[in-house]
């Protein structure tokens, strides 16, 4: 048993970490999209409505990571978790939930930002193919956001399936189990960083090349899908290790 104040400290720290870390990435990613859009408008003032639309849609999708973090922060702060089971397992679960979704959104948001920025640059070069480029940008950003959804799932699991402390559990066991929960947040948080930004790089290069060689759109999209699927594999390993750390440690 711990006092409710310590559970509250974990809630506040988790909420703060999740929103602050993810807003760093959102600022950088969305700023990059806007910067490329402005640069492209300078070169092609006639395409400014298409560029504005693309910029707005791209920024909205890049913002997803920030919104996930905000939702988790609100859940941590206002769903009355301090009235539930008060144990060290609750403390480490709540802290890990904040770390998972906060760190976990950095890579996907940076990746979506790169993809959106390259799409704006490509539309500035070839305004007639704006629809093809925007379609590819949306698919690329969606691929890049998948690992963000893994982080959200782990975070929700950590908040809503906090294990109880069985009768007769020793202090050593509680230390081990609490560390396992904290590690599950760290693994999905760091594990989505590489795949998220890697897939963003694939999608960004694909947008750029569709803008330069619109006739090769189908081949480029096929390569983008295969490449993104292979890059995603390490995020899936991280998800597996994270779920094992939550559910398989007895």
């Amino acid at each position, binding site marked *: 048993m711990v006092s409710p104040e310590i559970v509250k400290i974990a809630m506040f720290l988790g909420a703060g970490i999740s929103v602050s870390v993810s807003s760093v990435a959102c600022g950088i990613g969305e700023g990059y999209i806007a910067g490329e859009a402005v640069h492209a408008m300078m070169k092609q003032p006639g395409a400014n409505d298409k560029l504005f639309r693309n910029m707005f849609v791209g920024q909205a999708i890049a913002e997803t990571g920030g919104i996930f973090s905000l939702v988790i922060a609100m859940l941590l702060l206002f769903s009355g978790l301090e009235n539930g089971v008060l144990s060290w397992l609750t403390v480490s679960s709540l802290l890990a939930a904040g770390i998972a979704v906060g760190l976990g959104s950095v890579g996907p948001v940076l990746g979506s930002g790169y993809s959106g920025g390259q799409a704006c640059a490509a539309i500035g070069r070839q305004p007639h193919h704006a629809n093809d480029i925007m379609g590819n940008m949306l698919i690329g950003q969606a691929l890049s956001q998948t690992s963000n959804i893994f982080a959200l799932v782990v975070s929700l699991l950590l908040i809503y399936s906090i294990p109880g402390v069985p009768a007769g559990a020793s202090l050593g066991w509680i230390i081990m189990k609490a560390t396992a929960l904290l590690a599950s947040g760290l693994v999905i948080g760091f594990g989505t960083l590489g795949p998220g930004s890697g897939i963003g790089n694939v999608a960004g290069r694909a947008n750029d090349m569709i803008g330069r060689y619109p006739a090769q759109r189908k081949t480029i999209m096929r*390569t983008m899908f295969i490449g993104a699927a292979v890059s995603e594999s390490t995020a899936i390993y991280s998800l597996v290790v994270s779920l094992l750390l939550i559910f398989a440690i007895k």
Partner: protein
Amino acid sequence: MEMTIAQGIAKAAALLGAGVCMGIGALGPGLGEGFVAGKACEGIARSPENANLITRTMLVGQAVSESTGIYSLVIALLLVFAVKV
């Protein structure tokens, strides 16, 4: 459930190690494979007649980059399941 504090700390360190190992180990392969695939998109756009060759090289390169991710997964699983204290 029966564990001394020292055993608990030792097992906790193994689990934290598993988390850090897989988390940071996923960073390099993810970034590297994304870079390979991005360059493959560029190559295919510039010379579409070599699409098969480029896709094959991309997959081989990604498979080699993936190896350290798999090492991390193996070490993480060993730390979770094989470490007895």
